[in-house]
């Protein structure tokens, strides 16, 4: 769908730039010139914020830190080293990117509330430091001998064009990233970070890239702001209003799109400037009040932002033909057939694919897994069963890296994988599904699976092909364009299976994949699992009941109280006295 929209988007961006530039050409009044410039700078800051928070969902209340560092760097570098802003602004961008990394490394350990709160503290701490350093009010020195070389122009229109150039660059960057692996990965992180990590996305790396880009862009905007405003004070660049402004223009216009921050800045900045000019004498705080009201109104009335609201209204007016086209679109996928090779080469060395020795993990006083040793043979379907609380899911979490073992060893294909991050283990060929499904709810089934396919390829088109084929293998082609938030339990289970399959795994860990399925549905899913096993993929399934499993697995491992209770073929296990005792209690033994 976005194939055809791609070029139109570039036309829109170019058209906007041309129109704004043309308008700027005819503005003589220097005050209006300044407002036109500042609008663009805030749009860039909004885009910078959007690059991190809009796509990843990690709300930053601290973008003033980057903005302020950029502004102060440009001014102080010009004072100290006579460094021209032509160089200073790009350098400020680099500095902002480094600041982003510096902030990101510790702060990304936090999620949700804690992340937002921590981000708030950075600019406020910097604000007081800059005051203490004596930079209460720093002015850009006038360079009369070579004004142009120091970005000093008598004609205010030049600043409009400079800011416009920065904005267009920021828009082009955002637009390119949005449709790339960057946008997709961050979107997946936004919706379920755990699932994203298990699907092979290096969540920390992507978040660090995002904050570095975002911080760099915000710092560059701050540098330009300093050049335009001529005077920098701690409050004007590190103050809460700056962070709020970044967030407000983006939220108001619409998060997760290039146009959101631009629309937000074009609406709110002139409005507040007008109110400020009109009422500043009588009502000094009115600008802040307007921003506050705008935020509250957006959150209550159009939480998705103006851009998305307008788009929804337009699409509804366009009516049914739009949806009909969308429904018809995914048809070709079915015609092509599966081309991707998901099969795993058979190996005849006889060594187990996965070998676990003496694995143990406690949570507080609870020994969830104590001294588990087991082997998973190549190409087999292994069932791990045990009553609730036997440590099955913890075992999976240990195997795919969500949890680090207290003791013991996990060897995959002869390589020790203890303590590796989940995305690394996924790249080594271990895919998994979850007991409670973890879809990326706001993405289509196809996009969910594409995220999984990024492990297998770096190329977006190839990832799309792999995803299409993985979806075909599990028989979900008909639902590929549906939103993951709206499909049935069985379809969700299959989608997770496809997402794991798209990474071309050698080993699949399936956590209670039959939970909540009807008898017929269980048979369908079982058939698909057998199909995957035929491709040579080794499969480990967790279940707490044996019934369905006896028909599927080659071998059972029984866990109880965090330890291996028994091991063997389905026939052996169903006749095993200890297993019956663990499951049903001693009094049933007499009847067995």
């Amino acid at each position, binding site marked *: 769908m976005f194939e055809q929209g791609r070029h139109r988007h570039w036309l829109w961006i170019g058209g906007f730039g041309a129109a704004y530039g043309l308008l700027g050409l005819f503005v003589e009044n220097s005050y209006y010139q300044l407002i036109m410039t500042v609008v663009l700078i805030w749009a860039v800051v909004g885009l910078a914020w959007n690059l991190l928070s809009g796509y990843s969902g990690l709300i930053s209340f601290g973008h003033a830190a980057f903005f302020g560092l950029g502004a102060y760097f440009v001014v102080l570098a010009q004072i100290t080293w006579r460094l021209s802003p032509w160089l200073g602004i790009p350098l400020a961008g680099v500095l902002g990117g480094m600041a982003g990394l510096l902030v990101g490394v510790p702060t990304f350990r936090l999620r949700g509330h804690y992340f937002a709160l921590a981000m708030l*503290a950075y600019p406020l701490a910097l604000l007081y430091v800059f005051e203490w350093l004596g930079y209460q009010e720093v002015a850009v020195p006038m360079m009369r001998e070579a004004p142009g070389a120091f970005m000093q122009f008598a004609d205010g229109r030049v600043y409009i064009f400079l800011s416009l150039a920065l904005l267009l660059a920021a828009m082009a960057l955002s637009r390119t990233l949005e449709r790339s692996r960057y946008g997709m990965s961050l979107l997946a992180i936004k919706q379920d970070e755990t699932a994203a990590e298990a699907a092979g996305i290096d969540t920390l790396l992507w978040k660090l890239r995002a904050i570095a880009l975002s911080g760099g862009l915000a710092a560059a905007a701050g540098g330009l702001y300093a050049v335009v405003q001529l005077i920098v004070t701690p409050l004007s660049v590190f103050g809460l209003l700056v962070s709020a402004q970044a967030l407000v223009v983006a939220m108001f216009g619409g998060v997760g799109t290039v146009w959101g921050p631009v629309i937000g800045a074009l609406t709110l900045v002139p409005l507040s400037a007008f109110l400020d000019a009109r009422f500043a004498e009588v009502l000094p705080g*009115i600008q802040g*009040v307007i921003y506050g009201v705008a935020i509250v109104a957006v*959150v209550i009335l159009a939480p998705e932002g103006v851009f998305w609201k307008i788009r929804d209204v337009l699409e509804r007016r366009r009516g049914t033909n739009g949806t009909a086209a969308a429904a018809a679109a995914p048809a070709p996928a079915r015609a092509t057939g599966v081309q991707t090779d998901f099969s795993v080469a058979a190996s005849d060395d006889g060594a187990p694919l996965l070998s676990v020795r003496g694995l143990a993990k406690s949570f507080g006083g609870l020994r969830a897994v104590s001294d588990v040793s087991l082997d998973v043979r190549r190409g087999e379907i292994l069932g791990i069963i045990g009553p609730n609380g036997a440590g099955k899911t913890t075992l999976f979490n240990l195997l795919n890296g969500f949890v680090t073992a207290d003791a013991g060893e996990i060897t995959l294909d002869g390589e020790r994988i203890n303590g590796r991050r989940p995305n690394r283990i996924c790249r080594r060929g271990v895919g998994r599904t979850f007991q409670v499904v973890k879809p990326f709810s706001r993405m289509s089934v196809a996009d969910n699976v594409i995220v999984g396919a990024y492990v297998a390829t770096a190329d977006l088109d190839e990832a799309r092909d792999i995803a299409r084929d993985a979806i075909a293998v599990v028989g979900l082609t008909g639902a590929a364009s549906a939103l993951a938030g709206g499909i049935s339990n069985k379809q969700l289970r299959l989608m997770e299976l496809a997402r794991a399959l798209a990474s071309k795994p050698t080993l699949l860990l399936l956590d209670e994949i039959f939970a909540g399925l009807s008898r017929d549905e269980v048979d369908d899913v079982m058939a698909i699992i057998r199909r995957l096993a035929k491709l040579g993929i080794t499969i480990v399934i967790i279940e707490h009941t044996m019934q369905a499993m006896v028909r599927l697995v080659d071998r059972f491992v029984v866990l109880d109280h965090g330890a291996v209770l028994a091991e063997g073929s389905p026939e052996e296990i169903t006749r095993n006295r200890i297993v019956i005792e663990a499951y049903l209690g001693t009094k049933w033994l007499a009847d067995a």
Partner: protein
Amino acid sequence: MTAAQHVENFLQLLIAGLVTGTIYGLMCVGLSVIFGVMRVINFAQGEFMMLGMYFAYYCFGFIGAHIFFGDLIAPYVSALLAGPAVFLVGIALHRLLIRQVTGVGSTVLESEGHYAQLILTLGLSLILSNGGLVAFGSAPISISTPLSSTPWIVGPLYGEDVLLFINQGQTIAALIAIAVVVVFALLMRRSRLGRALRAAADNPEAAIYVGIDVDRAYRIAFGFGVGITAIGGGLLASSHPFQPYIGIDYVIVMYAGVVLGGLGSLSGAFFGGLTIGLVQQLSALFLPNQLQNTAIFVCFLLIILFKPDGLFGRAARRA
């Protein structure tokens, strides 16, 4: 400085830290009620404190002029009255705005719901602080009473060298803060309302099934939370000059305290606030005055990064 001067300096700051910290503790309890019950992060908490300060200021002007002994008890009466006044403001704002993005019935994804709350309260914070500028002007003011400039003098101790000045006004304010915390803790523990609030906090869905009006419980918790913080603001107003933008400095102080005590724990919040007060005052021993707030922010960052569940927190709970 001589050794005695060092000791005097340290003890003086320690006392100041304890006194201010107690009031911070009260403010943190207010914030913690809101988080504990509603799981809402309220960025506008500092602005409600600011409202409490201005309420106390104007109320003091009125009582002080009209009642016998007015200027002695009026600061405290005004501060206490700021509680119910801001409670009503909180109830109204919850009904009008906050309810729409929180609560049991909201259909948004959990994470998106949090963002809506954060952003809504950030908007409220901007409206209240800048609206305050419009309404009250930007000049810093404070409530000055005879007590706020009269110290008790302790000493001379340590030979003849150490003299301690303990501000009477602030000390009484701190004692009142402790009284309010104790009364509120009893209310939460013993009363029917307190049990309903705790039930709604623990498991909103189950609370609905046993007949608790969770929406009302949230509203009352929000009112209590902002009201308690407003009392703290009112008590602080007689010793600290303030202006409409003061909220943002204190919202960090409060969050630092609440996070330090473990998000959601009332007693933790009180001791967290007390600790922050001590850190702020004692940092003056080795940091210039302007960096006192930076010390708090750095302390806050360190806590949040290394012990997100708080020093006094309960078992680990993932955010």
